[in-house]
C-alpha cells in the first residue's frame, strides 16, 4: 500500500513538474510572442486565407 502511494505521488510530482517546465520552456521559446502569425500557420500559398477547402462530393461550384 505504501509503495503504491509513493508511486502515485512521485508520478503526480514528476508530471506536474514537467508541465510547469513545459510552460516555462514555451515562454522562453517565444511561443506566445507573435500570436497573429501563429493563428495563420495552418494556411499557406496553396491553401491561402479565403479558400474554402471542403465541399460535398460532386457538388463543388465555382
Amino acid at each position, binding site marked *: *500500500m505504501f509503495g*503504491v*502511494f509513493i*508511486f*502515485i505521488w512521485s*508520478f*503526480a510530482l514528476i*508530471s506536474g513538474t*514537467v*508541465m510547469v517546465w*513545459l510552460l516555462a520552456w*514555451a515562454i522562453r*521559446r*517565444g*511561443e*506566445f510572442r*507573435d*500570436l*497573429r*502569425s*501563429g*493563428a*495563420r*500557420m*495552418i*494556411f*499557406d*500559398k*496553396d*491553401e*491561402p*486565407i*479565403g*479558400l*474554402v*477547402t*471542403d*465541399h*460535398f*462530393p*460532386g*457538388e*463543388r*461550384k*465555382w
Partner: protein
Amino acid sequence: MVADTKAGVVKGAPSDYEFRVEVDRSSKQVIVLYWAAALFWLTVASIAGIISSIKLHNPGFLGGIEWLTFGRVRAVHWDTAIYGFGGVAASGTLLWLQARLCQVRMPYTKLLIAGGLVFNVGILVGVVGILMGQSTGVETLEFPLYAMPFLVVPYVFIVIANFTMYFKKKSSHTYVSQWYLMAVTVWFPVLVLSAEACTNLGAVDGVAQAIANWWYGHNVVGLFATPTGIAAAYYLIPKVIGKPIHSYHLSLLGFWSNAIFYNWAGTHHLTGGPLPAWTITLGVVGSMMMFIPVITIGINHHMTMLGSFHLLKTSPTLRFAVMGSMLYTVSSFQGALEALRSHQEITHFTHYTIGHVHLGMYGFFAPLMFAMMYYAMPRLMNREWSSARLIRIHFWCTLVGTLLYGGAMCYAGIRQGMMMNDPSIPFLNIVQWTIPFLMSRTLAGLILLSGTVAFLINFVRIVTPHKLTWATPTMLDSDRDWKQILEAEKEAKPQHE
C-alpha cells in the same frame, strides 16, 4: 522531393501542396486502420447501447442469456464507446493532425500499426471478459485487469510518435490544437495508471476509491476526449472556411484554463454521497471555473464562423464540426450547472445525467471525429467519398438522434427528480411514467445507429477500390484546380490596376 524514411522533416523544396501530400501519405495506413477500428467499435457500442436501452422498458428482452444481462451489456456499451471508438478515433486524429501541423512524416508507422492492432485486441479481450462476468464493477474501468496491458503498452508508442513529431516540427510556433494534443498524451497515461492503482489495484478503499473512480470517470472525458475534439475544431473550422481563428489569444486562454480547472471537477458526481463536504465543494468550484474555457471556446467558434454559416450547406466537414462545437458549448454549460447542489437535488440519480453524457459524447466529441474523418480520408486515399446522400443521411441521423436522446432524457430526468423528491408519489409510478421516454431513447439509439451504418458504407467504399461516381474530387487537388481556374479567370478578364 526527397523525404526521410524515419520521422524526418520533408527535405528539398517542394510546394506546400506537395508537402501536405507527402505528410498525409506517410500516415495513411496508420490512420485508416485506427479510424476503421473506431467505426467498428462505434457500431458495437451502439448495438450494445440499444440492447441495454430496450431492457430498461422491456426487462424480459434477451433475458435468458446470462452474458447479455443489463449489467454486462451496459458496461460493454460504455467501454467500447469510450475506449474502442473514443480512444481509437482520438488517437488517429491526434496522429494525423500532429503530422500535418508539424509538417513532418509520421514516424514509427509499423510500430503504430502493431500498437493499433494490439490495442484493439485488448478491447476485444476486455469486452469478452465483461460478457463472461469478469467486469471489475468500477465504472469506466470495467475491463478486467488482464486486458489493461494490451491498452497501456500501445499508447506508449503513440506518445513517443507524438513527441517525436513535435520536436521535429517545421514551424517554430505551437498551434493551439497542438497544445491540446500534447497535453492529452501527458494527461491520459497519468489518469489511467493513477485510477487503476487507486481502484482495481486496491491502493485505497471505500469512499476514497469512489473519489478516485469519479476523478477518473470525469477526467477521461474532459482531459482526453474533450481536448482532442477541441483540437480538431480549432483546425477544421478555420481551415475549411479559410479564415483564421477569431481570437487566438482567447484560444490559448481557453487551453490553459481548461488545463488548470477541469481536473478539480470530478467529485461533483458524488454530490449527496458520504464524502467530506469540502471535496464536493472543491468539485463544484472547479466546475464553475470551467465557464472560463467554455465561454472562450464558444466565443471563438461562433465568431470565427460568423459570416460563413452559408458554407454549412456545401461542406460536410463543416456541418459536423459546427454541430460538435455548438453542442460542446451546450453540454459544457449544462455540465457546469449540473454540479451545483441545488441542481443535483433534482437531477442526481435520474436520466438527466445520461442525457447530458450523450449530448457531450455523441453531440460534441463524435461529430468532431466524423468531421476529421470526412476531411482527411479523401486526402489520405486520394479518392472522393462515394455518396453525398449517405453523408447527409449520416449528418441528419446524428443531429436528430442526439437531440432526441438528449432532449427526452433531460426532460424526463427533471420530472423524474421532482417526482422522486415528493414522498407521496410511489416509486413504481415514477418508473412507469418514464417508460415512454425510455422508448424514445431506444428510438434515438436506432436513429444514431442508422447514421453510423450510412457512414460505414461510405467508409468501406472509400477504402476499397470502386468505380467513382464523381468526376470532380472535393479538394484533393484543390489548389491545383484552383490555380488553374484563377489563371483562366485572369486571362479572361482584363486587370484593373
